[in-house]
């Protein structure tokens, strides 16, 4: 072409570019949308005034039964009142939970185990029944998601002759049994490597380093999954299959051990929505120097892959002392304004973040003094790990 174009020529050409129509009919598109699970499976947010009749009646009966005791104690036993109210509230919360669980579709197959304290985090009290097998699973987006696969204690005791195995023992015993693809994750584990542990030092002999270090993204996934899988060690020494320090394509020869701080990873936790499930996870494994920085970062959606656990419009200020962070909501927060899931992610996302800086979390200015199994009048229990899921393939 010999024509010379000026900007005006290009603007005219651009404005006359052909219109491209969709060949599908409106009805085709509508049918496709109606068939999408996400349009069917969204749990309805239930405003209080629209509780189904049977729940409203049940609540009325409960309150009618409790009312005499509330009245009898109106001489000023505030604690008894609070207990009665919180019992009623707790009961109503549990019935709402029952309704939501019953109405949830197959996409919620990782529904909270009602024996657990939380939904997105595991707590020390949960460890009476289970041993958590922690694993960094890799999504199709090439992102690492930390999960805690719950293995019943009797099974661990039978397989490993201990109920307090190391994370390496759990990994070597159970990793082959994990079908990552059944959870829609990529088949990343087991690592093509052998391991040795000596007290708090883990040594990893990698057979094919190229498969983990060929690009900066691969290296990032590799290091993030390692720190989300192996806990209880101070450091990881990486060697090649000749026993020499490995060489990463991006970083060269690695002569220093890789620090493992699984209890204190200094992440900020966000919502990761993946294949109709929600998880809480750090955004690209990013770490922060201080807990204040992490909590400040959590106020905003970090990118298009993750979302903040803080509901829109909710703001807070922080108060700190040496061992405790208090998150004080600027306006009284009513957890019933959110779905159960949103409320759990808010509470547990904040708790996991604060705990992984070695501090405890106190939430303040919440309308509910207690909610589900949380008591907001005191610091929250320490979260041990994130995203508990039942491992269906292991018989109880």
């Amino acid at each position: 072409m010999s024509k010379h174009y000026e900007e005006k020529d290009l603007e005219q050409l651009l404005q006359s570019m052909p219109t491209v129509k969709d060949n599908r009919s409106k009805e085709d598109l509508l049918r496709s949308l109606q068939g999408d699970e996400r349009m069917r499976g969204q749990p309805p947010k239930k405003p209080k005034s629209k509780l189904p009749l049977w729940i409203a009646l049940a609540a009325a009966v409960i309150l009618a039964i409790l009312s005499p005791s509330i009245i009898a104690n109106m001489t000023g036993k505030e604690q008894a009142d609070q207990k009665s109210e919180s019992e009623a509230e707790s009961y109503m919360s549990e019935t709402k939970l029952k309704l939501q669980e019953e109405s949830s579709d197959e996409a919620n197959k990782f529904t909270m185990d009602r024996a657990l304290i939380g939904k997105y985090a595991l707590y020390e009290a949960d460890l009476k029944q289970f041993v958590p097998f922690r694993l960094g699973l890799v999504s199709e987006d090439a992102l690492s998601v930390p999960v805690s696969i719950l293995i019943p204690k009797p099974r661990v005791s039978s397989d490993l002759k201990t109920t307090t195995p190391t994370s390496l023992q759990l990994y070597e015993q159970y990793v082959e049994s994990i079908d990552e693809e059944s959870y829609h994750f990529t088949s990343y584990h087991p690592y093509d490597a052998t391991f040795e542990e000596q007290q708090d030092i883990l040594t990893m002999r990698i057979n094919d380093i190229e498969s983990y270090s060929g690009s900066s993204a691969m290296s990032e996934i590799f290091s993030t999954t390692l720190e989300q899988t192996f806990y209880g060690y101070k450091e990881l020494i990486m060697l090649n299959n000749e026993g020499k320090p490995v060489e990463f394509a991006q970083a060269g020869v690695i002569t220093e051990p890789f620090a493992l701080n699984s209890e204190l990873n200094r992440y900020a936790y966000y919502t990761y929505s993946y294949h109709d499930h929600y998880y809480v996870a750090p955004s690209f494994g990013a770490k922060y120097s201080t807990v204040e920085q992490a909590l400040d970062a959590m106020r905003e959606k970090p990118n298009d892959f993750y979302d903040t656990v803080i509901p829109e419009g909710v703001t807070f200020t922080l108060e700190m002392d040496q061992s405790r962070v208090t998150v004080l909501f600027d306006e009284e927060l009513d957890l019933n304004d959110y779905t159960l899931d949103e409320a759990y992610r808010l509470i547990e996302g904040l708790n996991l973040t604060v705990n992984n800086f070695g501090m405890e979390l106190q939430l303040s200015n919440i309308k509910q003094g207690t909610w589900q199994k949380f008591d907001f009048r005191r610091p929250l229990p320490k979260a041990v790990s994130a995203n508990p899921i039942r491992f269906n393939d292991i018989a109880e």
Partner: protein
Amino acid sequence: MDDSVFHRLYDEYHDDLFHFLIYLVGNRTDAEDLSHEVYIRVMRSYKHFRGQSSEKTWLFAIAKNVAIDHFRKKAVRAKYNDVHFDWETETLPADDRLPEQWVAYNEEKSELYRCLNRCTGDQKLVITLRYLQQLSIKETATILEWTESKVKTTQHRALQKLKQLMNAPSNERGESDE
């Protein structure tokens, strides 16, 4: 799902929406998938739409995010092959299969489309919204969540780039005609 909302949105905006998406991604299959995704997000968040922008700019902002997610996912997978992608400075890894209508098209416009694919992601977004969708600077800024100043400078750079490419000899444009 409220079918009446869908019907209204479809009747008012679907042609423009599809037109926008297909020019960004360059192939019909992806445009169909992305438009489905846009409606999913729109229908799920419709009750939260507060009317702070026009309905059309709100819907196009969602479409823009869906398209960005699409390109980011492609780029993330490409990272395994050590292909680094930066949305603001690099070209979109667009599919060069042109919609079939273009077969009937004149060569000049086909060439312009190829040149558009060699602009950065930001530039292509601005050109598509400003010229193919005929949106104002203000509407474009709202959709992209940019300042109006950024829209203007990006548009200027995009036109400069297109001018440079369209005026280069064909063997210097870097891509052969397909």
